[in-house]
């Protein structure tokens, strides 16, 4: 600890250089930690659904194709199935095209059985069952459009050639996607002239271990029919959506590493310059009796402090910015819920420590080992 003063004073030797180095490391780690946080959101969502007992059954030909509503009855009869809820994509637009949020029609009798983890209050459920034009809205969409329970809203049909007028009876919370709007399928059916088809069916199974067995039973049951099904566990279904983001995630990570590497090289250059300037002093300290090892630890501590300061500043501000961003906008769909996980925080600090140590390692080792007489000769 008695060496702390030496480290501290040397950091202040050239305040501007130290500050600039800290800032450049901070900026790079800001970018790094923000970019690396992006994919973790996907992983978070996937791990949330990993032990889910829900199955998504949809048309084998793709999500754009529908399946008969009558499939629901047959699915409910399969052993281990507790409930099943049909879901139809309405694709309505609230005000303008850019004001979109996902909206579906669902079975009002089934929702609390299939989505018990969506924290819908019993009163809301009751209202949803009672009022034919009722709808439930995710917290984020409520906030974004300053909606309140009891309010009437109109969604303009984009796939369907009619509009729906809905009354908000409750808010979706818990693990519900915060942007969703759900209304009743019987309303949609009637308005659409009872086509008898739905986008997909959500199936609730009693235990996670029975999920594969039920999936097989559903798909076998509808094999060779006019609308064959493809059933997936909830995590596989959501993972499929995530798949399209995968490349972007990878790019984000790679970009993050490149930025860090680049700044690492810049920091190495700065460290080399700053140590080179002090060769004479280092030689004097060694002639006094400081060992190479002590000198090396002093030099590395300095640059470790610089790295860690940059790291703290960088991921601290990324943490705050992501937090503000997540609260401020809902327009980015699942992306709006990017938070910095503790793992990324730890990774960033480790990265900053590594930048610190490795940027100075080369010049520090050679300065600490350098022949004292030669180095003294250069100052004299």
């Amino acid at each position, binding site marked *: 600890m*008695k*060496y702390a*003063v*030496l480290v501290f*004073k*040397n950091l*202040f*030797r050239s305040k501007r250089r130290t500050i600039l180095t800290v800032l450049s490391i901070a900026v790079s780690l800001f970018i790094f930690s923000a970019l690396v946080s992006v994919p973790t959101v996907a992983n978070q969502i996937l791990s949330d659904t990993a032990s889910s007992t829900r199955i998504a059954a949809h048309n084998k030909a793709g999500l754009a194709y529908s399946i008969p509503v009558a499939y629901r009855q047959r699915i409910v009869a399969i052993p281990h199935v507790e409930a099943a809820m049909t879901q139809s994509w309405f694709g309505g637009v609230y005000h303008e095209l850019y004001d979109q949020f996902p909206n579906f029609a669902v079975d009002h009798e089934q929702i609390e059985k299939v989505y018990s983890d969506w924290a819908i209050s019993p009163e809301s459920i009751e209202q949803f069952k009672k009022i034919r034009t009722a709808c439930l809205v995710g917290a984020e969409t409520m906030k974004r459009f300053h909606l309140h329970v009891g309010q009437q809203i109109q969604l303009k049909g984009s796939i369907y050639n009619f509009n729906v007028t809905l009354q908000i009876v409750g808010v979706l919370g818990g693990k519900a996607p915060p942007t969703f709007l759900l209304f009743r399928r019987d309303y949609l059916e009637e308005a659409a002239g009872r086509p008898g088809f739905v986008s997909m069916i959500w199936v609730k199974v009693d235990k996670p271990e029975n999920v594969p067995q039920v999936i097989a039973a559903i798909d076998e049951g509808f094999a060779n029919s006019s609308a064959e099904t493809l059933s997936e566990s909830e995590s596989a279904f959501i993972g499929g959506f995530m798949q399209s983001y995968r490349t972007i995630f990878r790019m984000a990570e790679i970009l993050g590493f490149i930025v860090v590497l680049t700044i690492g090289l810049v920091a190495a250059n700065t460290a080399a310059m700053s140590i080179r300037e002090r060769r*004479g*002093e280092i030689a*004097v*300290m*060694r*002639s*006094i*009796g*400081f*060992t*190479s*090892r*002590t000198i090396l630890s002093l030099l590395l501590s300095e640059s470790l402090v610089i790295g860690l300061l940059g790291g703290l500043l960088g991921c601290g501000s990324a943490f705050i910015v992501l937090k503000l961003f997540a609260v401020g906008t809902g327009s980015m769909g699942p992306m709006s819920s990017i938070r910095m996980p503790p793992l990324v925080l730890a990774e960033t600090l480790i990265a900053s420590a590594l930048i610190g140590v490795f940027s100075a390692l080369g010049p520090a080792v050679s300065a600490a080992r350098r022949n*004292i*007489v030669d180095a*003294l000769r250069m*100052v*004299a």
Partner: protein
Amino acid sequence: MDEKYAIDLEHVVRIYKRDEFEVRALDDVTIQIPAGRFVAIMGPSGSGKTTMLNLIAGIDHATTGRVAVGGEEITGMKERDLASWRARHIGLVFQFYNLIPVLTAFENVELPLLLTRLSKAERRSHVETALRVVNLADRMDHYPRQLSGGQEQRVAIARAIVADPTIIVADEPTGDLDAKSAEEILGLLVDLNRQFHKTIVMVTHDPRAERYVDTVYRLDKGLLVGTEPGRRGAPAEAAATSA
């Protein structure tokens, strides 16, 4: 090797190799300096004075021959051991003071004590004593750039003596100073020698230095070409050691 000599060089040769050239910086030099002496090494530029000092201070190695300082043979010592040996036995003073610019006078003087087990309070009292000896107790918190050359050199001397070394080694300590400051520094070294019985080896070009020292060794082209008593009046045995 004889215990009674503070410094004992026997047939020391130091050859520097530069590409295909070889420089014999020291050529078969044998010198014995008894403890408690204040001696000067003089000679033209390039004659090997600094080389000899560096060998005595244990920051350079003899190519052949033996070097013993304070009765301890340092010829074959490992770098790590040599570093701690220097910390205990050698106080170095340079021509250009070589203070650490980012440290105050106090902190510069404290440097060698960081290598000891002394407590913070003990270090403080040692540093204060050393700065009092060089008459700079009132400049403790000044940075080197806030001091004159003479004051900087006095801080450097305080740094050299603070860990109570057996030998002080000074390379042209007055080389960069005006006459008045030079006299002060020489006077200070004499005091250290008289009052604290430090053995002092000083390289100098300054003819005035002869008045202050016990013995003058003259080097030329790496050879020891003369040993004469200084005008201060050398004690009897000084003459006996001259080769």
